[in-house]
C-alpha cells in the first residue's frame, strides 16, 4: 500500500492552564489517503478542532503536542521547525474555518487577501497573483470576480465569504484540506452549495480532505470514512456505509439517533443524556461510561482497547467483545 497522505500516530495534545496540564487530545491515530474524505465527528469540545490545529501547527500559545507523530507526505510535522511548518501551511496543507463572517480581515480587499498566499508560496508577481486570484474566484463560483477582487469582506454575504475562504485555501493547490465546520454558520441552501463545491474541488485537485463536523447530515453527504471522537479520544472509525448501517459504539448510535428523520413520523429524537466530561476530570475506565446506558463495572474500571469490527471498522467499547470477557485478544491501545 502506498504511503498515506497523512498519518497521525498516538497524538497527544495538552494545554497548560491554571488548573494544571490538561489533555485535549488523548492518543488519537488515523490516516488519510489522497482523494479521500475523512469526517471527524463529535460534540463541541471533544477535541476535533484541536486535532486539526495540531496538524496545522496553529495551537494556541498554551497548547502543545506532548507526544505522537504526524506524518504528512512522509515527513513528521512534529519534528519540523516553526519556519518549516509555516512554509507548508497555506501551501501544502490548507484550512478553512467555521466563521466566514469573521475569518477574513475586514480592512483588506478580497484581492489583497487572495494574492497573499500566491505571492508568498508561489513567488508570483502581484499582477500574476491578481490574474490567478480572479481564476480562483471563478473556480469557486463567485460571479463578477474582477469586481469582487476590489471589494472588502463586509460587502459580501456569508456564503460568498466562505467561497473566498475556500478559494484562498486552494490557491496553492494543497494536497490536504482541513475544513473545520465550514458550513455551520451558513444558511441550509448555501450549506449544500459549499459542500458540493468542496467535493468537486477535491475530485479536481485529488486532495485529501479532513472535514470536521457535528452534523451527521454533512457526514452522509461528504465522507468516505468517519472517525468519531469523544472527550479527546477516538471511539469509533470506519467507512461511512458501515458507520451508518452498523454503528457499534453507544456514542455513535446516540449521535445518529439525535438526527431528525423527516420520513418517519413516529421517529422521536433521542438526545444523549449528560454532557462531556471536563478536561480536568479524572475518569477511570471508558470516558463515555457516565453517559452510557449500557455501562458495566468493567467500563467503569478499565479503559477499552480498540476492537476490530471488520476490515477498516474499529471501535473502542467493551460491549464489542461482551463485557464478561476478561481480556480482549487483540488488545492494542492504552
Amino acid at each position, binding site marked *: 500500500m502506498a504511503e498515506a497522505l497523512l498519518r497521525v500516530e498516538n497524538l497527544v495534545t495538552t494545554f497548560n492552564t491554571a488548573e494544571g496540564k490538561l489533555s485535549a487530545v488523548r492518543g488519537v491515530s488515523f490516516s488519510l489517503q489522497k482523494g479521500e474524505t475523512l469526517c471527524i465527528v463529535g460534540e463541541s469540545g471533544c477535541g476535533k478542532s484541536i486535532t486539526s490545529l495540531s496538524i*496545522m501547527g496553529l495551537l494556541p500559545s498554551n497548547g502543545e503536542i506532548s507526544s505522537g507523530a504526524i506524518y504528512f507526505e512522509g515527513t513528521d510535522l512534529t519534528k519540523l521547525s516553526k519556519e518549516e511548518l509555516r512554509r507548508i*501551511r497555506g501551501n501544502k496543507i490548507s484550512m478553512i*474555518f467555521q466563521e466566514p463572517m*469573521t*475569518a477574513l480581515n*475586514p*480592512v483588506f480587499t478580497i484581492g489583497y487577501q487572495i494574492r497573499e*498566499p500566491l505571492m*508568498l508560496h508561489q513567488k508570483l508577481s502581484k499582477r500574476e497573483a491578481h490574474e490567478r486570484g480572479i481564476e480562483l474566484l471563478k473556480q469557486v463560483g463567485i460571479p463578477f470576480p474582477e469586481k469582487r477582487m476590489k471589494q472588502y469582506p463586509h460587502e459580501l454575504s456569508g456564503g460568498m465569504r466562505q467561497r473566498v475562504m475556500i478559494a484562498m*485555501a486552494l490557491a496553492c493547490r494543497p494536497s490536504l484540506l482541513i475544513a473545520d465546520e465550514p458550513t455551520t454558520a451558513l444558511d441550509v441552501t448555501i450549506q449544500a452549495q459549499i459542500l458540493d463545491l468542496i467535493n468537486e474541488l477535491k475530485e479536481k485537485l485529488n486532495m485529501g480532505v479532513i472535514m470536521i463536523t457535528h452534523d451527521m447530515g454533512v457526514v452522509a453527504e461528504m465522507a468516505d470514512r468517519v472517525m468519531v471522537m469523544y472527550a479527546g479520544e477516538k471511539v469509533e472509525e470506519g467507512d461511512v456505509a458501515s458507520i451508518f448501517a452498523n454503528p457499534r459504539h453507544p456514542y455513535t448510535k446516540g449521535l445518529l439517533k439525535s438526527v431528525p428523520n423527516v420520513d418517519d413520523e413516529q421517529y422521536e429524537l433521542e438526545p444523549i443524556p449528560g454532557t462531556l466530561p471536563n478536561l480536568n476530570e479524572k475518569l477511570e475506565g471508558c470516558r463515555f461510561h457516565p453517559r452510557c446506558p449500557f455501562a458495566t463495572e468493567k467500563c467503569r474500571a478499565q479503559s477499552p482497547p480498540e476492537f476490530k469490527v471488520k476490515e477498516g471498522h474499529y471501535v473502542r467499547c467493551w460491549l464489542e467483545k461482551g463485557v464478561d470477557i476478561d481480556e480482549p485478544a487483540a488488545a492494542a491501545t492504552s
Partner: protein
Amino acid sequence: MAGLIVRRFFQLILLLIGISFLVFTSMYIAPGDPAAIIAGPTATKSDIDAIREDLGLNDPFLVQYVRYISGVLHGDLGYSYQTKQPVWEAIMTRFPNTLNLAIASIMVAVIIGVVAGIISAIRQNSWLDVSSTVFALAGISIPNFWLGTVLILIFAVNLQILPVGGLDHPFYTVEGMKQLILPAITLGTGSAAMIARMSRSSMLEVIRADFIRTARAKGLKERTVIWVHALRNAMIPVITVIGLNFGFLLGGTIITEQVFAINGVGRLMVQAIAARDFPMVQGSVLLVATLFVLVNLIVDIIYVFIDPRISYD
C-alpha cells in the same frame, strides 16, 4: 465625505459661538478691571473712566458681546488691550512654536506608545510587558514640571548636550531640533503612556480574532501577521486617542512652555488672563477650540482610510 466636512463646518460655527459666549461671560463677571490694569497703579479715576469709555467697557454686556462676535465673523479678532497689537497677529507669532512642539511631542508619543503597546501585547505577561506597563503608569503619573526640570538638570546642566530652553531656531535646523528634544519628551511621555495602554489592549483583542488565525493558516510570516494584518485593525481605536492628545497639545501647554521658556500659545493665554486682556483671551480660546475640532475631523477622515467599513455617506 464632503457631507461630513460641511456638517462639521456648521457644527464648528455653532460651537465657536457657544464657546465665545461662555468665555466672554466669564471674563465679564470675573473680578478685576482691564482699564485699571492698563492705566497702571498711579492713574486717577478719570483716567480709568476714559480708558473704559475708549474700550467700550461701559456698554451693556450684550452690546459688547454682539460687537465682538460680529467682528470675529468678519475675521477681526480685535486688538490687545495691553499691547494694542492685533490679536490675530499676536497669536500667529506664537502659534508656530506651539505647533512645532505639538508635532514633535506627538511623534515621540506615537513612536514610543505604539511600539511599546504592541510589543507588550504580543509578549503578554513577559518582562517587556511588565516594564512597559510600569513605564505607562509612571508616564501618566509624573507631572510635566518635574519631568521637564529633571531632564534639564541631566541633559542641559550636567551633561550640557542639549539647550536649557527657548525655541528660537527653525525646527529644521540642528539647533532647532536640539531645542525641541527635551520639551517634546516632557510633553510626549504622558501621551505615549496613554497610547501604549490603548495599543496594548486593542492589539490583545485583535490578535485573538479569527482573521489572525486565517492569516497564520495561510502561512504568512509572523511579522506580516502582526505588523500588517493585526496592526491596521488595532490602530482604529488608537487613532482616536492620538487625535485627542494632539488636540490638547495644540492648545498650548502652559507648564511645559513655562519650564522651557517657549513662547507659545499656552503662555500667551496665561499672560492675557492675568492682564484681563479680554480680546487676547477670547482669540486664543477660539483658536484652540477650532484646532481641536479640526483635529477630530481629520481623525474621522483617517478612519475612512483605515477601516473600509466606515462610511459617512
